[in-house]
């Protein structure tokens, strides 16, 4: 697994962005950038260079689920691994996220171990 890949963390709460960023740093990923909702995230993704997307669901402007759909609909971005980290916990929502094409789903509040496990799992699948 290459540790120098560029990761985009999207969450409207700066606290959560910082937590995820620090946990990614613990895993050896230091190239992490941030956006506070789907609207600001999408142009960053379209610029290219981002290889992994971690996004919240409930955000003003453009929600995470809409961002996932936009990414999957864009031929240049469609293959990007996406981890959804959200407090949304309804069965329909989780199913909808999976159908929209997320590669992992972590509900808040999470532990460091769970987040790390899900990230590892995503990279294992990509690697294999």
């Amino acid at each position, binding site marked *: 697994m290459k540790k120098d890949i560029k990761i985009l963390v999207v969450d409207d709460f700066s606290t959560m962005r*910082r937590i995820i960023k620090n946990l990614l740093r613990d895993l050896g990923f230091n190239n992490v950038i941030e956006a506070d909702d789907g609207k600001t995230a999408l142009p960053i993704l379209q610029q290219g260079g981002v290889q992994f997307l971690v996004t919240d669901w409930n955000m003003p402007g453009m*929600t995470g689920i809409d961002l996932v759909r936009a990414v999957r609909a864009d031929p240049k971005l469609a293959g990007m691994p996406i981890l959804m980290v959200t*407090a949304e*916990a309804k069965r329909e*929502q989780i199913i909808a996220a999976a159908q929209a094409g997320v590669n992992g789903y972590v509900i808040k509040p999470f532990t460091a171990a769970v987040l790390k496990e899900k990230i590892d799992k995503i990279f294992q699948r990509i690697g294999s």
Partner: protein
Amino acid sequence: MTEADLHRGLDGFESLLQEKASELVTVLEGGDLNSALTIINDLQQVKHLAFYNEVGYLTRGLHEAIKSFSDDVKVQGETNDEQDDSIQGMADASERLGYVIELTEKTSHETMDRVDKSLALVDKMDEQSGRFADLLSMVGQLEAEFEGLRGGYDRTCQLKKESEQTVKDLRAELTEILVAQSYQDITGQLIRRVITLVTQVESSLVQLMDMAAKVERISGLSVEKPASNTNQKAKKDPIEAEGPQLAGKNDPDVACDQDDVDDLLSSLGF
């Protein structure tokens, strides 16, 4: 029709109707069509007036209720100079909740600043441990030469190992403190929902007051300044973001923890 008849109100209207009905039959039997029509007109007038008065009382009561509710929402000790500022109390409530989010965000970042500093100190301890290893190998060499140092190398090695484990545990604890700050996100999302609710209630109240003012103007009871209204109700989307679920809600449609999420997704083949 007497002045008293005009002000009987809704309760008195029924008995008035009965009285007038028999009077109407009498005048009709007597062939006095004019008087009959006058009676009908009078009844109509009494009915309208009673209705207007009732609506007027109702709206005035509503207005008072809204005002006292808004005053309740308002935190004590605040200036209460303008009557039409009564809705202001609710706006203040939203503002206060917004401030809670702001404050917890700031405090969370301060905590995380400390965690970052502590983690840097832990890194320093790791580095010191490396230097300690160099010194230790020197002790190992000397041990052979001095009787008094015998066993000192092994014991120090053991201590170094323990200390390294402590540093590792400390790092894990600091990471947990960091992750625990996610409460700010969870509570913030819940508070935002309450703010949305308060804002909706507020705009509904403004609408009601607007309506009450119009009714009061028509019924001639008293004149209130109309308030602007801005209210729109969004359609309910089944997967619309709801924010954190409340603990203990026990809704079968809600995944309780990460294991539930994993089970659900794997059962669907994801």
